[in-house]
């Protein structure tokens, strides 16, 4: 047990050391502290995985955190198969991205600050995945949100960055409000917030209803959907996805670690962890699947017309998270976590490659000004190409196995919306391949379109950046090999390993159907790549013509369906109006200020009249005293 404690607390220690001593003493060496801590965490995580594989799981409380009546919460740790997988994902990505940051953030003013927050983030994320109760999960959940806010707004002198940080934080409030309510309902229903008793008694609430605003709602559906609210916010699903593209204002390693590999997948982790509750409600599962599918399609369509390389990858992340929710929604939690695990590698890699390109282009993000980078940055090109092959679902690469498993289980599973989400998922396979390779072709092929100075500056990134790229690339290519399906002669070890926690649903289709589905997804993916090659390498004049032809659709997609504008008119402006005219205009000015200023004014008025009594003339006082004494004596005598 005690060894496991090192996993979250080493990064915490690194945070404390860096934040206290970093500014004065450690400065440019801050990475040593953070990297040592997170690498040690990784080693312990691997040991933990080996323990868990040999069958040792653990659920233990460390100490009582909150004790109030019947409400008890401990800081406690649950180490099971799901936790072990998450630990590996988090610590591996975190370690490599820490190392990459040494090169990427080199010479930055806030170097120590960056590494402190990165360590703090790792601590919170590990607390989130290792928790054995909902309160500690919530602590980690908010902690990673806070670190996300810090790191998005890392370049806080830039207004767009600090605005993006605020946006991420505020949008997440909407989701977390539901999540918080969900935890409260769980406590009211089960009388505890620990996983073990909640999940083992979950079956008892099947069929129970509660009266909500006059409607009878199934209790399980209510709890599941409230928890899912949190997931929607954290994992940037419709309609709360707006914060994630803006979060790209943060440094690129942050985008890779927080906004691709780990934090945003916490929503999927939550649904998988609480699957005992979700399983009780068909409605809730269908909502999860449909939201996932819509987000998946929606984000992918936006990604195909954007020009900012980081934003393309951000929309791609939203879209891939949609896949994970599709998996959870059709009951294939194992497949969802499998995709989470492979996605962490190839998406972190895509982001780090984008960072490497930015590094060479002196911060330029618009890929219309790039082109032909292939010959200047061979390592970045190769790794990014492999990551793109992986995300496009080319057979043999990590993304293929996880995506194929999701699509197959969606098609063949028992979910009522399975066929629908399968169809959308397959369309998105095409779109994913298309936008990923559009990015590759426009950035790395053709002629350089930037200025002469920029061309002169082009260079491959230093070793400290390219080595993490290569290591992540190994994961992006090979991470899926632990879960090769039975159909291809593998053992589906990954989902089987998670089976004790998440269940292991089987598809209800024939073998030939499974082959067919696999063939469809492979062909769609390759078609997407081919189409991108046709448009951006062979007929480079075509994209503009197409954009001209479908002007309206192009504008709609380019402006991200005007969601930001709609929110601005529907929510942001009315809120600001209400704040200005009601909260400041009425409450503040006429109620609070009236009381705050009125009381002292009244007292002042009374005292202004009263002080005339104080003449300063000694004999006046004496006369008043004598008169008073006389009156008292008179009263006593007359009584």
């Amino acid at each position, binding site marked *: 047990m005690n060894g496991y404690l090192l996993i979250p607390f080493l990064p915490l220690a690194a945070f404390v050391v860096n934040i206290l001593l970093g500014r004065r003493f450690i400065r440019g060496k801050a990475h040593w502290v953070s990297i040592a801590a997170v690498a040690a965490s990784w080693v312990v995580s691997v040991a933990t995985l080996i323990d868990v594989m040999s069958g040792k799981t653990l659920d233990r409380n460390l100490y009582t955190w909150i004790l109030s009546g019947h409400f008890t919460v401990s800081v406690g740790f649950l180490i099971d198969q799901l936790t072990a997988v998450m630990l590996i994902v988090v610590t591996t990505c975190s370690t490599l991205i820490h190392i990459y940051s040494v090169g990427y953030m080199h010479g930055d003013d806030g170097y120590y600050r960056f590494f402190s927050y990165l360590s703090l983030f790792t601590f919170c994320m590990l607390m989130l995945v290792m928790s054995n109760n909902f309160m500690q999960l919530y602590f980690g959940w908010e902690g990673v949100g806070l670190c996300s806010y810090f790191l998005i707004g890392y370049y806080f002198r830039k207004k767009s960055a600090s605005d993006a940080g605020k946006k991420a934080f505020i949008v997440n409030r909407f989701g977390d409000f539901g999540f918080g309510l969900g935890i409260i309902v769980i406590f009211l229903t089960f009388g505890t917030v620990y996983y073990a008793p909640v999940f083992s008694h979950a079956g008892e609430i099947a069929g129970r209803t509660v009266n909500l605003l006059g409607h009878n709602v199934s209790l399980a559906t209510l709890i599941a959907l409230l928890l899912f609210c949190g997931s929607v916010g954290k994992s940037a699903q419709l309609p709360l996805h707006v914060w994630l593209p803006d979060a790209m204002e943060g440094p690129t390693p942050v985008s890779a670690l927080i906004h691709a590999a780990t934090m945003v997948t916490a929503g999927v982790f939550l649904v998988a962890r609480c699957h005992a509750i979700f399983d009780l409600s068909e409605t809730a599962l269908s909502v999860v699947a449909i939201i996932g599918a819509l987000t998946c399609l929606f984000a992918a369509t936006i990604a195909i017309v954007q020009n900012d390389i980081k934003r393309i990858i951000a929309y791609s992340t939203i879209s891939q998270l949609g896949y994970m929710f599709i998996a959870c929604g059709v009951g294939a939690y194992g497949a969802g976590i499998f995709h989470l695990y492979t996605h962490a590698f190839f998406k972190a890699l895509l982001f780090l490659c984008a960072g490497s390109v930015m590094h060479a282009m002196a911060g330029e993000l618009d890929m219309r000004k790039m082109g032909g980078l292939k010959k200047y940055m061979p390592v970045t090109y190769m790794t990014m190409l492999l990551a793109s092959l992986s995300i496009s679902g080319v057979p043999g690469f990590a993304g293929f196995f996880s995506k194929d498993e999701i699509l197959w289980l969606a098609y063949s599973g028992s979910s009522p919306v399975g066929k629908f989400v399968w169809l959308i998922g397959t369309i998105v396979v095409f779109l994913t391949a298309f936008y990923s390779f559009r990015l590759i072709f426009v950035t790395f092929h053709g002629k350089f379109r930037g200025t002469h100075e920029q061309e002169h500056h082009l260079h491959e990134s230093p070793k400290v950046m390219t080595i993490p790229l290569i290591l992540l690339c190994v994961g992006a290519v090979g991470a899926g090999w632990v879960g090769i399906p039975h159909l291809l002669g593998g053992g589906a070890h990954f989902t089987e390993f998670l089976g004790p926690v998440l269940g292991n649903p089987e598809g209800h289709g024939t073998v030939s159907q499974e082959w067919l589905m696999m063939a469809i997804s492979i062909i769609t993916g390759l078609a997407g790549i081919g189409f991108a090659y046709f448009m951006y390498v062979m007929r480079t004049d075509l994209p503009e013509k197409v954009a001209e032809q479908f002007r309206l659709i192009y504008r709609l997609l380019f402006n991200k369906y005007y969601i930001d504008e709609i929110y601005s008119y529907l929510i942001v402006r009315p809120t600001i109006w209400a704040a200005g005219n009601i909260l400041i205009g009425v409450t503040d000015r006429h109620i609070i200020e009236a009381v705050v200023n009125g009381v002292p004014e009244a007292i002042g008025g009374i005292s202004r009249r009263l*002080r005339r009594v*104080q*003449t*300063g*003339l*000694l004999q006046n006082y*004496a*006369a008043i005293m004598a008169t008073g004494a006389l009156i008292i004596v008179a009263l006593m005598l007359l009584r």
Partner: protein
Amino acid sequence: MMAVPLNWYLILSAVVFSIGIFGFLTRKNIIIMFLSIELMLNGVNISLIAFSHYLQDLRGQVFVFFIIAVAAAEAAIGLAIIMALFRNKSTAHVDEMSEMKG
């Protein structure tokens, strides 16, 4: 020998006390006002002694001793304050001393 009746003492006490009050309220010289206070104190002393004798109880006399002792101390401090005031203001007129006006 015929004893002086209690009433007489009390009347004397009241007269002395009233003179003290009258002096304190009407005179403007601070020294005179100070003397008036002493008169008031002694007016009270007379009545205490008279009752002590009348009731054959020594406690009244003990009280008077205390009053005299305290009055002596008060006179010392009071006079010192008056001296200090006089040095600052070059006057002993109380209406000049109204800094504490509200």
